[in-house]
């Protein structure tokens, strides 16, 4: 069959569904059938699954003319998705097309949720299309004779590539692909990505810089113009609107008419705790929603999540309170309205969420923005502009992630074993490791075989062995087992299973929250009030509680920062706000700025609203100590860096200790001693000179690297976390990464994994590039220092933040003595 005949087959099927293939779909079919690789830029719900699954099936038909009567068995295609929740949807679409085209192609799913029995069955006979996650792909590479499994693999599709790109799971995918390129002949690699700032780079990362695949690839964009309308929910009485907070529950009554007026509404919250609270409060206040409202977040068990997703499709739900767990993939046609509670922190995310509504082609997407505190109204105004101008962020790919490399090499050693010379070439071809040097490579090999760079006499390190023929291989069954268990845990926090006493799995929860509770304490989880009975073997045993008040778990993933683009829009909005205060209220057009006027007036009474040429610093004293607040409006990550930098530089002038707090608007240095601001200004402490050097030193104290090291230690297998649901006693092997970090600092500071913690802090956390740009901007601004009597509206959300960094230039002993002295007073 030639291409036209194949296309006709597919188009006939489309016509039967009353669909018409989009131009981007046909473009993708063509490119695929020409044997090309590529990246498809298409939003969720646009028919992207059929853009790639169709040509895979057509290719099979072409190569197997008797496809209707004979079925050639074996794995032909892999579909990688970052979220297991998406796999069902994809499997359904794929099965439907394969069946109705008359092929006997089979579709299977393999994720962490797949039963042991099914896995074993897959091992005997792989389905034709396997839908899986990056972790499960690694696990396949960790099983014996994986090369035979992948021998006839023709296609691999990485769905939602933008979600993986800026993460270590993305690096896992890069490495996996580098192996598959060698062992699967005629492999075609395709990615699917939503719109991000660096699409071209996304393609390069996926296919490998200057690789054969990259040179034979296309970037296809689905140009579907979608109208998005953004509406802010503005409180009727600004006087009662809080200055701080992040829940937004005071606006609950404003939300109800919106829910009632729409078929299905998704309420997006930023954290799982916020999600739990909103769900509970809505039910308490509006019991009539019972049965028509549900909750969806990543810690709830799979059955419930799947049930919720199906109920949305069946239009039996009026409202779903959710988190980013519903950000991706799944196509929910009945959703009419989206409500975003609290700032979404990024434009791309906001647009994507808006896109969850009005899924039918040509329909307008409606998103309501609900500010959780006063200043967030400025964010609302900025978001409106962002959507209009489609300003979206870049996703920054990881470079030189040695932790993932160590994990990957161990994976290969666990299954078939490997010869370094072959694998080195493959690894060098990836984007992540294109700059890998011979020395670093040797270091990594030494690390996995000797556990150090020099062999010591009394050492018993055991992991990867070098066999006589030079093959690197894991022969110890315990090492292999622990490694397999560990592959999935690229997410950092130890997670415990929550179960009823009588049995029945409810979900999973982070250890650090549960560790704060005592038996008998009541907490809210999955919309229920539960009493903690005991913790045993990584299981949290609970029973239902009738008690009304309870603690709500807060999950740590929730803290996100503004992107550069969002910060810029926010600053512009702020400058506009400053200008608008000089106008009479009647001539202010933006309803957000109008609503904010009473609060702005308060701000002006104590301080100022900075204009574009101004940089505001406020100082005041409270019971807690001396506060100094700086307002760069650059997003919390840059503020964390700027705060540490400034604290460090001040501490060079005089022995002093600080705690640091920051949010997306500014940062605070709080000390028990008065900060000499004159001295700060006279000494030009915002200077570029010695920037990197000073940052390094300040960070040493401020512990950011220590936090990064946690993930690194887990991924590289330095810390064994055990595994939820598996009752393996690992206590004697559990250590905390904090301790480990200190040991490395004292004994092996040249360790590449230890250094990586610092590098990641600079590249991904602090966004060094952005930091330079903001210092440049500050250098051009006039510094306005306001000595205030009491906290200002702008400062309030910052000074009440409980999560704080520390920095000190005092000697530990002196510090203890001074703290004790102050306590005596």
């Amino acid at each position: 069959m030639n291409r036209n005949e194949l296309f006709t087959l597919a188009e006939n099927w489309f016509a039967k569904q009353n669909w018409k293939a989009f131009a981007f779909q046909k473009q993708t079919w063509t490119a695929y059938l020409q044997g090309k690789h590529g990246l498809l830029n298409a939003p969720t719900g646009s028919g992207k699954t059929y853009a790639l699954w169709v040509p895979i099936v057509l290719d099979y038909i072409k190569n197997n003319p008797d496809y209707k009567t004979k079925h050639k068995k074996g794995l032909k295609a892999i579909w990688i998705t970052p979220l297991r929740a998406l796999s069902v949807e994809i499997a359904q679409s794929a099965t439907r097309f394969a069946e109705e085209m008359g092929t006997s192609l089979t579709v299977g799913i393999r994720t962490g949720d797949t039963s042991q029995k099914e896995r074993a069955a897959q091992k005997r006979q792989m389905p034709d299309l396997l839908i899986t996650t990056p972790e499960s792909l690694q696990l396949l590479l960790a099983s014996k004779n994986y090369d035979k499994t992948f021998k006839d693999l023709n296609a691999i599709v990485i769905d939602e590539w933008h979600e993986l790109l800026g993460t270590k799971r993305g690096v896992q995918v890069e490495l996996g692909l580098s192996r598959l390129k060698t062992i699967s002949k005629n492999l075609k690699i395709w990615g699917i990505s939503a719109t991000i700032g660096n699409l071209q780079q996304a393609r390069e990362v996926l296919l490998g810089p200057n690789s054969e695949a990259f040179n034979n690839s296309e970037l296809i964009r689905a140009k579907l113009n979608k109208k998005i309308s953004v509406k802010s929910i503005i409180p009727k009485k600004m006087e009662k609107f809080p200055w701080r907070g992040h829940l937004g529950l005071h606006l609950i009554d404003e939300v109800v008419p919106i829910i009632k007026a729409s078929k299905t509404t998704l309420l997006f919250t930023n954290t799982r705790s916020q999600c739990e609270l909103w769900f509970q409060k809505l039910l308490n206040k509006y019991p009539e929603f019972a049965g028509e409202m549900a909750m969806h977040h990543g810690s709830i068990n799979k059955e419930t999540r799947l049930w919720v997703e199906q109920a949305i499709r069946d239009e039996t739900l009026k409202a779903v309170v959710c988190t980013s767990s519903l950000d991706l993939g799944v196509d929910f046609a009945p959703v009419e309205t989206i409500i975003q509670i609290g700032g979404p922190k990024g434009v791309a995310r906001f647009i994507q969420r808006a896109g969850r509504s009005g899924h039918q082609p040509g329909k307008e997407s409606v998103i309501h923005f609900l500010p959780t505190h006063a200043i967030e109204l400025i964010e609302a105004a900025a978001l409106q502009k962002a959507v209009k101008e489609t300003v979206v962020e870049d996703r920054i790919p990881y470079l030189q992630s040695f932790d993932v490399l160590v994990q990957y090499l161990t994976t290969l050693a666990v299954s078939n074993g490997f010869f370094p010379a072959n694998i080195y070439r493959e690894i060098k071809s990836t984007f992540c490791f294109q700059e890998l040097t011979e020395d670093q490579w040797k270091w990594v090999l030494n690390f996995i075989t000797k556990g150090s760079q020099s062999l010591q006499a009394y050492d018993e390190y055991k992991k990867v062995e070098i066999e006589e023929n030079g093959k690197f291989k894991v022969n110890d069954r315990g090492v292999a087992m622990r490694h397999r268990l560990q592959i999935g845990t690229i997410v950092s926090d130890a997670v415990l299973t929550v179960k009823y006493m009588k049995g029945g799995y409810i979900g999973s929860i982070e250890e650090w929250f549960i560790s704060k509770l005592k038996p008998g304490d009541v907490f809210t989880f999955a919309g229920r009030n539960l009493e903690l009975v005991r913790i045993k073997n990584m299981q949290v045993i609970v029973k239902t509680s009738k008690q009304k008040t309870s603690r709500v778990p807060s999950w740590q993933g929730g803290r996100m920062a503004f992107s550069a683009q969002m910060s810029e829009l926010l600053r512009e909005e702020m400058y506009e706000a400053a200008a608008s205060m000089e106008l009479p209220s009647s001539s202010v057009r933006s309803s957000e700025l109008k609503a904010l006027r009473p609060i702005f007036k308060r701000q002006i009474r104590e301080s100022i609203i900075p204009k574009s040429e101004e940089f505001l610093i406020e100082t005041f004293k409270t019971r807690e100590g001396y506060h100094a607040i700086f307002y760069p409006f650059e997003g919390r990550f840059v503020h964390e860096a700027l705060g540490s930098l400034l604290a460090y530089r001040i501490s060079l002038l005089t022995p002093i200790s600080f705690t640091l707090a920051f949010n997306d608007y500014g940062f605070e240095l709080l000390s028990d001693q008065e900060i000499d601001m004159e001295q700060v200004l006279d000494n030009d402490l915002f200077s570029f000179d010695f920037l990197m050097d000073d940052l390094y030193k300040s960070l040493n104290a401020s512990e950011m690297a220590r936090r990064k090291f946690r993930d690194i230690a887990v991924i590289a297998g330095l810390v064994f976390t055990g595994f939820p649901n598996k009752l393996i006693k690992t206590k004697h092997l559990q250590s905390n990464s904090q301790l480990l970090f200190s040991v490395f600092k004292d004994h092996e500071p040249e360790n590449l994994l230890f250094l990586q913690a610092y590098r990641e802090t600079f590249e991904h956390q602090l966004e060094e590039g952005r930091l330079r740009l903001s210092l440049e901007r500050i250098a051009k601004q006039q510094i306005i220092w306001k000595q205030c009597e009491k906290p200002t509206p702008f400062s309030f959300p910052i000074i009440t933040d409980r999560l704080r960094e520390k920095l000190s230039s005092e000697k530990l002993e002196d510090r203890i003595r001074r703290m004790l002295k102050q306590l005596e007073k």
Partner: protein
Amino acid sequence: MKKSIQLNNQHFDLHFSGAVYWPEEQMLLISDVHLGKISHFRKYGSAVPNSAITENFDRLNNVIAQFQPKSICFLGDLFHSSLNLEWDLFQSWMQTITAKVVLVAGNHDIISHLKYEELGVKVLSELQIGTFLLTHHPEEREGFFNFCGHLHPGFKLRGLGRQQLNLRCFYINEQQLIFPAFGEFTGNYWINPKEGDRIFAITKKEVILVY
């Protein structure tokens, strides 16, 4: 460097390393060294820096050199787990020690007592000296003051400006002195002291009363 205190009319020097010297008995008390922990991790494929292994012995030597004790009593958890090559290091270290060595066994001390006795180390489940009861796990016994370890006590010192310091410490209450862990690469249990308790924090060079 050290802090001298009195308990039941006897003198004790609290040392910043976490050891305590008892001049009347010329005895050095040390708890929770957790030797072999690093090797244990390495044996299971976790590449903790092996240069940290010698650190424990260096610190033991320093504190012994300072007090020149007649006897050394380990209050349990001398070894972290089963035998590994660090035992050989311990063996050669023992040959350099002239003091008598006693081990009050802890929950981690699963290595055969015979192995210890071969090296001249006496292993006991507890030790009574006058009105003092030496154990690994904290105990309360009528008429005795208890020296023990096991908990790895630490203290969070809070101050103005939301400052907080996490410090290793000696914890003293009415009937117990709980020792900090002497070993490198050990964690902490955060103490919540009651009225009348005392806490001595240890830094890299000093012992300071903080509560």
